[in-house]
């Protein structure tokens, strides 16, 4: 069975709110997930990502809009008629059933013959690395093992699509990194379309083919991890994907190759991709902490500043540097070799002439 995609068309969902009356959890969201693609819905809590996922699953009914799985309109179907695999944040294993019976549940509901069931269950348990766990009960398993059972239970029914609702957020940090690699590998191996919900941008960047960033019930930007990082469309995306300095500056020259912006007393060249900023206009630059280079004060040109704080993290050191009235974040990689600046030290900041992005929305 080759993979099929998912399409949602201007889907909205309202909820009753105790104080505000009625609020939109999701407002007119449209989204296309390509066959065999892993798309992540990324956003802070309350942004509507889980509600969107639950509408794809059929746990919530949209107030308006349509949901398609493949070419089938599933908007009116209950979750049990959609043939999806859903993996929950808290695993949602059946506490009274053994690992075997948990995984076999969906097959038993389909009334498959006993022989097929036991074959399919052992195959899928082998796939997730849980052979020999058949007779254990959920409360005897570790968090990672429970999540593997949940995954096995979801994929054994050969669902058309896989939906993940923050599946790793209850695991500790190391296991989380390991499991996300396994999840991704499994999704590729099964050649299945997947929608993945998380609030962790690193997880999203690690696992996804494409990311849709959600904010206040709407999708604010879609693209690959690299797209979003390099060309954030808004301050929100710039701040949410990675860390960033958002610097206001005035356009001092504009030409066909790009524009020059006066920022903190220095002229920075920016490749202007279609923003058409005019001379004298105020624009915002997305300056990532790692592109700024710090040098000692006496190294000539550059913007002078003072180190305000320093956090040593091993592979990098993070500084806060005061430049005039602004406080800039600067990350310096390989600090052990390159040396650390003490707090209070006067330094110069050097911006690259390429690769700095203009925020496309006007004022942000």
């Amino acid at each position: 069975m080759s993979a099929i995609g998912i399409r949602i068309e201007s889907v909205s969902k309202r909820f009753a709110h105790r104080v505000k009356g009625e609020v939109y959890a999701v407002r007119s969201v449209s989204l296309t997930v390509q066959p065999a693609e892993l798309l992540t819905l990324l956003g802070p809590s309350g942004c509507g990502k889980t509600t969107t996922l639950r509408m794809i699953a059929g746990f919530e009914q949209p107030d308006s809009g349509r949901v398609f799985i493949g070419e089938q309109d599933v908007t009116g179907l209950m979750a049990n008629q959609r043939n999806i695999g859903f993996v929950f944040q808290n695993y949602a294993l059946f506490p009274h059933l053994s690992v075997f019976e948990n995984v076999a549940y969906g097959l038993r509901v389909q009334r498959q013959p006993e022989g097929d069931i036991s074959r399919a269950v052992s195959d899928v348990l082998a796939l997730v690395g849980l052979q020999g766990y058949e007779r254990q009960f959920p409360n005897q398993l570790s968090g990672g093992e429970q999540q593997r059972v949940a995954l096995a239970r979801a994929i054994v029914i050969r669902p058309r699509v896989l939906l993940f609702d923050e599946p790793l957020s209850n695991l500790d940090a190391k296991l989380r990194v390991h499991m996300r690699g396994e999840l991704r590998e499994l999704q590729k191996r099964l050649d299945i379309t997947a929608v993945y919900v998380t609030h962790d941008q690193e997880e999203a960047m690690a696992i996804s083919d494409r990311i849709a960033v959600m904010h206040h019930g709407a999708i604010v930007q879609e693209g690959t991890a690299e797209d979003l990082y390099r060309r954030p469309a808004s301050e929100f995306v710039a701040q949410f994907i990675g860390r960033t300095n958002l610097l206001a500056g005035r356009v001092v020259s504009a030409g066909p190759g790009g524009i020059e912006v006066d920022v903190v007393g220095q002229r920075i060249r920016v490749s202007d991709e279609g923003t058409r900023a005019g001379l004298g206009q105020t624009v915002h630059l997305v300056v990532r902490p790692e592109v700024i280079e710090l040098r000692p004060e006496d190294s000539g040109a550059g913007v002078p500043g003072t180190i305000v704080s320093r956090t040593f993290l091993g592979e990098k050191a993070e500084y806060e540097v005061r430049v005039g009235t602004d406080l800039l974040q600067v990350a310096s990689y390989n600090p052990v070799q390159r040396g650390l600046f003490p707090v209070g030290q006067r330094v110069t900041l050097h911006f690259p002439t390429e690769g700095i992005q203009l925020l496309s929305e006007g004022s942000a």
Partner: protein
Amino acid sequence: MGGPAGRFLIRRSPCFLEASFVIGIAAMRANSWRRTLRDPALFATVVTLWALLALFILFPLANLLARTFIEGGHFTLANLGAILRDANHRQAFWNSLLLAALVGLCGTILGFLYAFTAVRANLSRAWITVLDAASLLLLISPPFTSAIAMIFSFGARGLITYHLLGIKGFTVYGLHSTLFSETFTYFPIAYLTLKPILHGIDPNVEDMAFSLGSSRWRVFRTVTLPLTIPGLANAFLLLFAASLADFATPLILAGNSFPVLPTQAYLQITGLFDLKGGAVLSFVLLVPALAVYLLQRFWVSRRYYVTITGKVGAQTAIKSVAPWARAPLLCACLLVAGVILYFYALLFYASVVVALGANHAWTWQHYRVIFTEGLKAIHDTLIIGGAGMPLGGLYGILLGYLVAKKIFPGRQAMEIVSMINYALPGTIVGIAYLIAFNDPPLVLTGTALIIVACYVFRYSPTGIRATVALLQQIDPSIEEASESLGASSGTTFRRITLPLILPAFFAGLGVVFIRSMTAISATIFLVSINWTLITVRILENMTELSLGPAAAFSVLVVIIVFVVIILISGLLRRFRAAGAVEMTSILGG
């Protein structure tokens, strides 16, 4: 005891005030209708349950009100006026309130003494077990066990008054002994209400007061007691309601000089064959009963402070009771426990001697009597209890599941309606059933069904609440997981939810069975030549002064109930061991 129904009312009512919100509610209503109609199993269950609730709760109650207020198709207050003009009835009304208030007061004090001693006096586990056992004994017995023991002790030929003290002409009948007997019968309710509250007061809070230089008495007065006041009010109201509803104790002990409403209503119907008078009297009883219930449920029970201290801090030795005060407190409690044990020992003794107070020769005669001419009552009771048990258990978890988990129109109304027969005094329920099912369209009088239905709809709320409590511990995603794996809501309920709420099922059916064995106030109106009950036979024996068989019957009931409780606790333990969810008590609520 604050159930979800009340919480919903309180939580949601401010929303209704917002005009803009009304549209949203309407939209959601439409949505919930849509959802309900799309899920045939849910729809069918909701419709069936509403039909049952309407038939066995609303219809009888409506009949009772109609009988009271409608005469020849018109609304009238004449019936009510006629009853209230009768001085005897007015006296019964005030007597009922007086008795209930006194029982509330005495029972709460006794319950507090018990709870305070158990929680705060640093007793060993063994002593606490003794206190618990004594109060449990009362909770599971027929409510008039202590009344019978009172007659044995203080009656005309009473063991204590006549034989021990040689008093002749002592009248056991009246307020004093009814009060005494009801206080003993119902104080365990106060004990069970107050114990967790006292337990929930973090000893560190008291330590704090000690560290500020307070004396023990001052800490008790200014910290412990104020924190317990909502619990005391709650216990008082629960006891007030229990006494107001109690029928058997006053029937045995109150006598002619102290009429109360439930007995008046009973006599009006069985003695004077005046159904209408009985209906009106039970309406008069309904008003204070409902007021107390609403007060308890929606006001007092949400005024607990206990949780505010949050997590109980480091274990600290409890210092609330001075060493010299421990012994008197324990003695007082043991005295109470001693009286209870004495009651039961006396009951047993009376069942194995020829005639208590006259001929103390050993005999099995009374047991022979109850297993020959009384066999029908035993047989009927077991059949009725046995039939009510699975029905009540099923009804309890179905309704509990629906109101806790599903969104459908009229959900809150369903929960509230399901509690009505539980909240009302049994006399009212019994008379309402009698009126409703005596004439066409539905004649059930004289059948076992009417008794079974009465028990199921009156005593299942325990199961409903246990189900709701259990379901609140089960994450909704577990059912969604089942749904996403292709299971219909019916399959999900059968294979996932049902096994997880099985403890509530056992608790629910256990309570229905136990109450079928011990209750009398409602079903005394519903028994017939065809179907009778042990409790009714006990009462008949008491009035015929054949005390031996009455005692033997009572002992039998206590034994049956004990066996059932042990079986159910065993089942509960087994299912807890299987790893699902914990279930605290089968007697809660």
